[in-house]
């Protein structure tokens, strides 16, 4: 398994991270070691019961949409955490 710099570039882009050329080289080497290790599971042949589900497999847990809290109760607490705000809005740069 050899990871290419192009793969690292693509993954960094997906992760919204910038890497220096030196960091890319380091991560590429580490990736080979880590992926080489985790790939060992590909040798395990399936022997578990077919269709069995993990105990931690998630299921949707829904509740009735009732008893809402008072409107605006948490607005100030949460907006006060935003690095940029304008009135009751979180401010971001224009996208289009």
């Amino acid at each position, binding site marked *: 398994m050899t990871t290419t710099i192009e793969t690292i570039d693509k993954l960094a882009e997906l992760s919204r*991270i910038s890497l220096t050329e030196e960091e890319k080289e380091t991560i590429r080497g*580490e990736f080979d070691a880590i992926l080489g*290790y985790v790939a*060992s599971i590909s040798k395990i042949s*399936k022997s578990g019961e077919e269709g069995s589900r993990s105990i931690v497999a998630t299921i949707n847990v829904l509740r009735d949409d009732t008893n809402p809290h008072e409107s605006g109760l948490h607005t100030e607490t949460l907006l006060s*955490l935003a690095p940029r705000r304008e009135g009751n809005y979180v401010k971001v740069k224009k996208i289009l």
Partner: protein
Amino acid sequence: MTVPIDLTTLTIKKAHDHLMRGDFSALDLAEGYLQNIEAKNKELNAFLEVYANVREQAKEADKRIKAGTATLLTGIPIALKDNILVKGEQVSASSRILEGYRASYDSTVVVKLKAAGVVLLGRTNMDEFAMGSSTETSAFGPSKNPFDTSRIPGGSSGGSASAVAGDLALAAVGTDTGGSVRQPASFCGLVGLKNTYGSISRNGLIAMGSSLDIAGPITKTVEDAEIIFNCLKGKDVLDSTSIELKAESGKLKVKEMTIGVPRNFLEMKGIDADVLANFDASVEKLKALGCKIIDISLPTVPHSLAVYYIIMPAELSTNLSRFDGVKFGLHKDGQNLLEDYLRTRTEGFGKEARRRLLLGAYVLSSGYYDAYYRKAISVRTMIEQEFSEVFKTVDVIVTPTTPTPAFKIGEKTQDPLSMYLADIFTVPANIAAIPAISVPSGFVEREGKRLPLGLQLMGAYGQDALLFEVGKSFEGV
């Protein structure tokens, strides 16, 4: 202060008895720990912050004690790992990306601790977002092991373990995703508990791997760990994966228990000879307690670490996508929104976080999803089944908690894979959602210093109570 308090031998149970008898007050006790923090934290780097209202909390606890409404935990000074939300207090997961962030609500764990009257001392250092086994990935420098300050205390809840072992707190609450409570507890001569997945609410913990994470106590005795667990446990409407543990089965007598030793797991390379000798001695102790010891085979379980390093980065990279410099935490300005994201995340996340974000993106990407993520999920289910089969014939499975004693600061930072292998024995319990506890099992000597080791006991899903019984008997030998 009425009587000088000997913090070194104090336990939650003993402190509670003293508080009830009026030998000292909760304020005296808190002062004792604050003095130790003042004297020792500079060297140990266990606490990132001591809360400003510790004395006020202690005075409230004293009022409850006087009023006769105290619980076992009222007035007990406890440290919190820096990924547990306390309303109004800073919390950072030891990352720059949460710079200046103050929690907008109490985690369920903290709601319960506050209701019990605990004195929350402050927040303790950890690996960034709990990604590490040594606290060396913290943005605020490593914590030190009180047994040898040239060594790490373990991780990721290393600041918590360092605080308790150094008598800077009577107990701590950390989180365990792949061993982050048990491994530092083992390295610092303490008890570390990771319960059945879901038995403690995750609401208000900063998420790492959501199908693996659970909060857990780091204490001096098994009894203390059980006291904290009994306070924290229970189903919570704010965490849909939380569960109510069923009442324990009747079979609790240690001398009637069967203990399984997974020999194949112990024959892997990289396990220290002294650790194996200490483990064999621990097994002999269990035998002397009347337990029946049998060898068991767990062929798939040793693959847990490989499964973990696929599932955890996948979940982590998803969980960390919320840190975008828009809603809270660090913001670094760029020319446009994309540059804002890039600059914020590049400057906010440390090296290990970046490595795991990329790994997560890799195992989830369309070309590799089947080979990595889907395969890992399937092997995870096989591991669960393997454990549940073996638990039909044994009550408890034992392993060493760690393959080596505490390592030196810097020893493994250049080789991530060797760092990951420090969790080889602890990760399976998270993968299989089963309970596990690390109990001190003695010492080895390295360069003239005594370094603690731990014995890990694992139980079947939901059978947490068995571990308390065996753990208490074992620590009494």
